[in-house]
């Protein structure tokens, strides 16, 4: 298993170092336009939020996996975990927000000791779409997690899981040795309780990130290939596949630099820029809450320590009207969400 940047004490563990790299090189030399300049051409700067639809809460950076592309730099060594007090503040916001979707992410959100309590309390409030982003292997990693498919079913949780490919080689190269087999077992467990099965209403979606320095292909075509292969090889069913580009931050940025792919990848992202995606990128309808309760435009900005440009900075002082009247913080990583068909936590956006 590789180590997190944090554990390695890498310079790239620091958000300011990442932002420095993203503004340097071809962007500093004028070879490539900054994201601000690019969206200004189509009159979309400053980028502003639309109606709030999704509250995405990162309940901690601890994870049982150390994936090579992880934008969170998550891993077993990460100790940033949301407390029950911050969760309570999130629950208070949930009671009054106009957001129809609650999206729990991490790390592995299930590793937060108060995860089940939070899910139980949030489901009492009632949200239209309650997403938990599960890395799948956590469901098989320890006996104490084996009942999670039943727990998710009980609370009508919408499970969204990462799966970079339908073959072992590509999956394990991105997510670690043995991840493919464990993920397949976990998907079977979810299918057994009804997830991904027609007529159950239990949604199981997969997230595809390319396992290297290239962009995702057509989402519908990839979904068809995933469905065919997982059904034929393992009898596994799922609902939708979301194809997301990897953003050049954190461990994926480290990979790009180490493999001498950084500049070419940035050129690829800029060349694939699609102005039609800008109006629907996720930061326009999402608010991201960090493990310690601070507010960000998206999970990527959270990792880059780019807080919301608002007088309201923390979930404890939440006022939706004031928060939604803000400019969205951007940098060159944003090209990752506007390349090709665009990317969001809900898949393509164009």
């Amino acid at each position: 298993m590789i180590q997190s940047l944090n554990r390695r004490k890498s310079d790239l563990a620091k958000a300011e170092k990442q932002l420095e790299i993203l503004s340097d090189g071809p962007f500093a030399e004028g070879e490539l336009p900054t994201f601000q300049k690019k969206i200004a051409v189509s009159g979309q700067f400053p980028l502003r939020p639309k109606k709030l639809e999704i509250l995405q809460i990162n309940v901690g950076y601890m994870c049982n996996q150390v994936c090579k592309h992880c934008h969170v730099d998550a891993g077993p060594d990460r100790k940033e975990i949301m407390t029950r007090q911050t969760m309570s503040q999130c629950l208070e916001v949930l009671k009054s927000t106009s957001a129809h979707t609650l999206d729990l992410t991490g790390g592995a959100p299930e590793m937060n000791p108060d995860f089940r309590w939070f899910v139980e309390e949030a489901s009492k409030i009632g949200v239209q779409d309650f997403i938990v982003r599960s890395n799948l292997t956590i469901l098989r990693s320890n006996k104490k997690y084996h009942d999670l498919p039943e727990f998710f079913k009980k609370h009508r949780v919408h499970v969204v899981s990462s799966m970079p490919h339908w073959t072992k080689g590509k999956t394990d190269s991105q997510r670690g040795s043995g991840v493919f087999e464990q993920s397949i077992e976990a998907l079977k467990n979810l299918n057994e309780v009804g997830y991904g099965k027609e007529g159950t209403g239990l949604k199981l979606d997969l997230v595809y990130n390319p396992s290297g320095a290239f962009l995702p292909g057509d989402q519908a075509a990839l979904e068809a290939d995933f469905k065919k292969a997982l059904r034929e090889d393992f009898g596994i069913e799922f609902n939708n596949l979301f194809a997301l580009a990897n953003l050049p931050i954190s461990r994926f940025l480290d990979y790009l630099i180490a493999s001498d792919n950084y500049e070419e990848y940035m050129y690829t992202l800029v060349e694939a820029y699609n102005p039609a995606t800008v109006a629907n990128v996720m930061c326009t309808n999402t608010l991201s809450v960090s493990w310690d309760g601070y507010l960000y435009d998206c999970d990527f900005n959270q990792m880059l320590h780019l807080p919301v440009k608002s007088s309201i900075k923390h979930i404890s002082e939440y006022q939706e009207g004031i928060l939604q009247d803000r400019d969205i913080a951007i940098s060159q990583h944003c090209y990752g969400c506007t390349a090709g068909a665009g990317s969001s936590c809900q898949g393509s956006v164009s």
Partner: protein
Amino acid sequence: MQKTYYDPADLKKFGKISEWNEELGKKFFEYYNSVFEEGELSAREKSLIALAVAHTIQCPYCIDAYTGDGLQRGITKGEMMEALHVACAIRGGATLVHGVQMMNKVNKLEM
């Protein structure tokens, strides 16, 4: 003076071919794009054929383009290499099958 005949950056300039003959360039790219659309063969299958042909004609631009295209489509290394062996077998076979001509000639001339 340019030190190599091929520059990877030139692939991105392919569209500029139309600048010196817009009509034929336009026709070519329309045809090209139609060829790669989903048809009785899937776009994925066409990508693998293109990759194999790219190696047969030894075009570095095409190899670059269709390796990247294959990765985007989720095509595996195994599938790519199998496609190449098909190209290789046909190319090798094409050499070897001419041996029949050689054999015919030798058999005709030798006592």
